[in-house]
């Protein structure tokens, strides 16, 4: 536990411009704190998040990647998050299959009004990743024993 306290995970959060990014702004406006390990990348819609971005993040040393979008049915572009949901469901299931802990990936629907949810989600996610420790698996699949 004491080691995990020291460990500062790198967390990449992709947030859609219309709901989740605004939700994060609201969390800020309401001074609802969450770990500084979380760095947000603004995308127009959760459907803009390419699996390449997620794998790239892991490749470059991220310990966890979270994608936030509008709640299903509320997408600014009507259908974007439905596509994102299918893509991420399959991608995360694949990562799980490859032995990557599923706590390192997450999708959460956060509306512009859910500052509290944004903050609690990030707190939860970061502590789950802290629990796991640094991500060594995704960087070194090829290393020999």
């Amino acid at each position, binding site marked *: 536990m004491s080691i995990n306290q020291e460990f500062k995970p790198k967390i990449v959060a992709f947030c859609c411009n219309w709901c989740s990014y605004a939700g994060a702004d609201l969390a800020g406006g309401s001074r609802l704190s969450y770990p500084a390990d979380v760095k947000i990348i603004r995308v127009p819609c959760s459907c803009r998040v390419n*699996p390449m971005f997620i794998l790239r993040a892991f490749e470059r040393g991220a310990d966890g990647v979270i994608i936030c979008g509008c709640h299903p*049915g509320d997408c600014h572009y009507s259908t974007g998050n439905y596509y994102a949901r299918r893509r991420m*469901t399959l991608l995360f299931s694949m990562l799980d299959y490859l032995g990557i802990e599923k706590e390192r990936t997450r999708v959460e629907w956060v509306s512009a009004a859910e500052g509290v949810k944004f903050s609690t989600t990030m707190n939860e996610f970061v502590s789950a990743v802290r629990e796991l420790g640094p991500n060594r698996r995704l960087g070194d699949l090829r290393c020999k024993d």
Partner: protein
Amino acid sequence: MQRLIDRMKELLADGTVQRVLGWKQGDLGYNPEPHYFNSAEELDEFIYDGFCGANLSKYMIKGSELEGKTLVLLKPCDTYSFNQLIKEHRVDREKAYIIGVGCKGKLDIEKIKAQGIKGITAVKGAEISGDCDELTVETVYGEKKVAYKDAMLERCHVCKGKEHKIYDELLLDSVDTCDGDRFECVDELDSLTPEEKFNFFRKELSKCIRCNACRNVCPACSCRKCVFDSNKFDSAQKANVDPFEESMFHIIRAFHVAGRCTDCGECSRVCPQGIPLHLFNRKFIKDINEFYGEFIAGEDAETKGPLTDFTLDDIEPGERR
């Protein structure tokens, strides 16, 4: 097979087709390769036997650009890929004259070698006209007998069925070869601990030499230029600077063909390192079936793929069925 050759010559002679896309005898007797035959004479080198595993549908991308019609031979499983390519506007149905050829299961020379048989000079009994029960393997150390089934490709043991999904005419008989469940391997891996799964894939993917054989043979990997060869994602593979890149390549490749992969098994067949690449595709297929309902890519040329479609109440990422 003579019937097939006669029919092909007939279609060439009456001008229905300009050329034949089939298999040509290789240099070893068990390694035929895809080939365009431009005349009846060239067909002397034509072969269709148990070693003709290669899926010719992808070659019709080029065939579609050629003048006139091309006669293409498709095994039942190849027709799924062909349909998928029609759906993606990559082949022109009008440019193909499809003879659906029967299939009695395709052979894997590595499976014969794995039985300790060395110095193989020829394999008899793989003729499609035969009963395909037993193979006689001629080696420098004498003849060995191998049961046909024991030399079959993994994919034929989990065959989708011997029905051609698209064709102009059918020739030669098929034999049902399915005696397994194609998702068993996925279930087995899924039941392991993360550590065990990781170790398994690390071991397998460590073998990858990025020769791109899987990508080149895959009928779903039909991009004019692969993302891994372009600068669009800063992902061009110059040298193996980063050990992660192989795994990224295989995960992304599987993702790009998810919902489009017909499980033709060519990736695993051609991998010189023997990486069971179909395990990636099968996982996606199994998930798609479980999450979004049974979907068989290439069963027809119209249905929307599962990743370009959705329902309002799809399951959430990370949710278990």
